[in-house]
């Protein structure tokens, strides 16, 4: 894929103070008893009319408002394409409908949770609110949800079908789903503070959530998006080879990378991917860890990219690399450069 892609603007709702003003990473404190970070939600009423707001569940509001704020920050009203990724969609609605089916024995069911449980409902809402009638797509695939949304948006630009694409991701955590995932061993069992994530020496991690959106286009913006590389269930060798070819493709040497933004999450089962990669390629490079800031979730990569954009701008860096994987299966590199 040839061509140059630029990030024009962005917005994020996350466990950090990320929605308004400039971003200063803050190590959060988990109150307990669960290892879970919650997004700091802004007041949505400034973005959505009360009549529209009344039916929307939490992640719909979070996704829609992050998208609207991103368009605002980019000074764009109607993008040419809207592409999102979500690992879980509206969990609250899916759960509500499952419970309603049981509680009302399949009779007299409200359609709203069913409608909102559909993964593309946030996309539909953004299109509806902005009257955007062009390309619209939604990916639902764990750690390759946001990543494919971004690739899709870039392809829209490459094809000349879009000048500006709105690309983003959203995910929420609920009490019920937290418990379900705990049965799969996803979370640390003992209360672990984000600051202690890497020294705990235990399996599992910290749950997170959030929404982040970007506008991407072909005219210079706030950062250049050189590329994205996804690697599915790689061995260490395959992963390292993928990184080497990815950087070579963009004519960037490992020593050119000013900052590595790493998805390390303290899960002793999978942290070696991060540790080995850092040891082998970036022993001297500055590393920032984003999972203690936002927690682990399917589309945490979107928060990482958002943080990469903020840091690149704020610190005047030349090249920032993001490396993230979701429980060892879906691995991704993003490469960003100064405009």
């Amino acid at each position, binding site marked *: 894929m040839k061509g140059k892609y630029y990030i024009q603007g962005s917005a994020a709702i996350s466990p950090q103070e990320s929605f308004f003003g400039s971003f200063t990473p803050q190590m959060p404190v988990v109150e307990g008893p669960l290892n879970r970070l919650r997004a700091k939600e802004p007041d949505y009423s400034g973005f959505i009319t009360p009549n529209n707001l009344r039916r929307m569940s939490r992640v719909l509001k979070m996704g829609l408002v992050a998208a609207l704020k991103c368009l605002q920050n980019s000074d764009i009203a109607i993008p040419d394409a809207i592409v999102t990724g979500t690992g879980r969609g509206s969990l609250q609605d899916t759960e509500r409908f499952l419970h309603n089916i049981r509680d009302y024995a*399949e009779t007299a069911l409200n359609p709203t949770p069913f409608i909102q449980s559909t993964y593309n409902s946030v996309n539909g809402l953004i299109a509806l609110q902005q009257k955007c009638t062009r390309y619209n797509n939604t990916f639902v695939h764990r750690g*390759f949800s946001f990543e494919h949304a971004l690739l899709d948006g870039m392809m829209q630009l490459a094809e000349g079908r879009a000048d500006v694409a709105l690309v983003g991701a959203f995910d929420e955590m609920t009490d019920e789903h937290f418990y379900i995932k705990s049965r799969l061993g996803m979370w640390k069992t003992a209360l672990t503070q984000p600051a202690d994530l890497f020294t705990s020496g235990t399996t599992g991690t910290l749950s997170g959530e959030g929404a982040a959106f970007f506008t991407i286009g072909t005219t210079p913006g706030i950062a250049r998006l050189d590329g994205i590389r996804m690697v599915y269930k790689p061995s260490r060798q395959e992963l390292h080879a993928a990184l080497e070819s990815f950087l070579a493709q963009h004519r960037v040497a490992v020593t050119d990378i000013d900052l590595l933004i790493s998805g390390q999450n303290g899960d002793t089962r999978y942290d070696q991917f991060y540790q080995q990669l850092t040891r082998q390629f970036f022993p001297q490079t500055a590393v920032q860890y984003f999972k203690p800031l936002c927690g682990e979730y399917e589309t945490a990569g979107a928060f990482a990219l958002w943080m990469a954009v903020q840091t690149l701008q704020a610190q005047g860096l030349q090249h920032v690399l993001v490396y993230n994987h979701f429980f060892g299966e879906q691995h991704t590199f993003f490469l960003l450069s100064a405009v």
Partner: protein
Amino acid sequence: MAEQVFITGMGMVTAIGNNVQENLQSLRLQRSGLGYTRHIDTIHKAVLPVAEVTATTQELAAMAGKENVPGYSRTTLLGLVAMQEALRSAGINDAREMPAAFINASTVGGMCDTEKVYFDILDPEKDGAFLQFIDTLDCADCTQRIADDVGIREYVTTISTACSSSANALMYGARLIQQGLVQRAVCGGTEALTRFTINGFNSLKNIDKQPCRPFDQQRNGLNLGEGAAYLVLESASLVRQRQSKVLATLSGWCNTNEAFHPTAPSPEGDGAYEAMKEALAMSGRTADDVQYVNVHGTATLNNDLSEGKALERLFGDKVPRFSSTKPFTGHTLAAAGAIEAIFSVLAIRGQLIFPNLHFSEKMEELNIVPETQLITGVPVRNVISNSFGFGGNNASLVISQYEG
């Protein structure tokens, strides 16, 4: 000009057949797959018709070579059966031979199995084999199991845009090929009936208690169905290199959004009109070149009206022959786009047009009626296949005869 994308293989399982040949046979014999569920525990089972795949989940496991292997949901097994046939039909013995993409589509993942044990999963007191289904609710679960089983790993992902999901999967795969990211992409979708979805559509009051009647004045809603379908897409250069047998060309596509309403289409069919028009323009064909439209035709009050209006707007008084095949297969949601893309290929290869079952009375708002009989021996060179869905998502594909 972007590289051409060819269809070189296809596989499917629906209520009217466990493979492409059986599906074609049922279409020819006008044998509908609608009936009542035998596999789902729901109070609607004797009331709401569905198009259910005949095989039990265990039988599907045997067909897929996964007997007694834990963790495979019905969604995954349907997909695996279709995937195996698609690769066979494309003459691919080992999908690992080259970097390829698997672009899957799903609306509720393995809900069919998860919903049966959901409240057990929530109960800390309960433990057992059911826990293997915890993660199948996730759409990625079926996709990755299928990808891992056949060894596709360069690009693996899942699209979920409700009823247009697998049409979007086909587009996405074709675009990956055109961008040179892969030479081969297997695309489509898989959908198993669930109590969740049946109740969902029923809560929207758009399921007909009779077999669905697309484009009929008396139509009263859709019937749900299940199934899976995948098409193997290959670049022109790969086709040349491996001498692939080309079944048809995926010559045009378009995805639009109506931005009109969360679940209802606009009455004039703006999104449907745009999607068809743009897809046709991309294919380099004109309205006169289209011999058949496999319409979305769900038989809901809204869809058929707006889709019919869009057809009249695009084709004027020369609307090509059209039919909805949903009275055969039911509305298979995420699988529908791929199933109907295969039907479009079959129409071209067999030079035939499938009937729209259960039609008797013209809609008063429209001047057009669907085909009600099987038509054979007619030239079918270009087919438009429509898939429209919730969230205003519209997708149209143009499938053309291979002129190689």
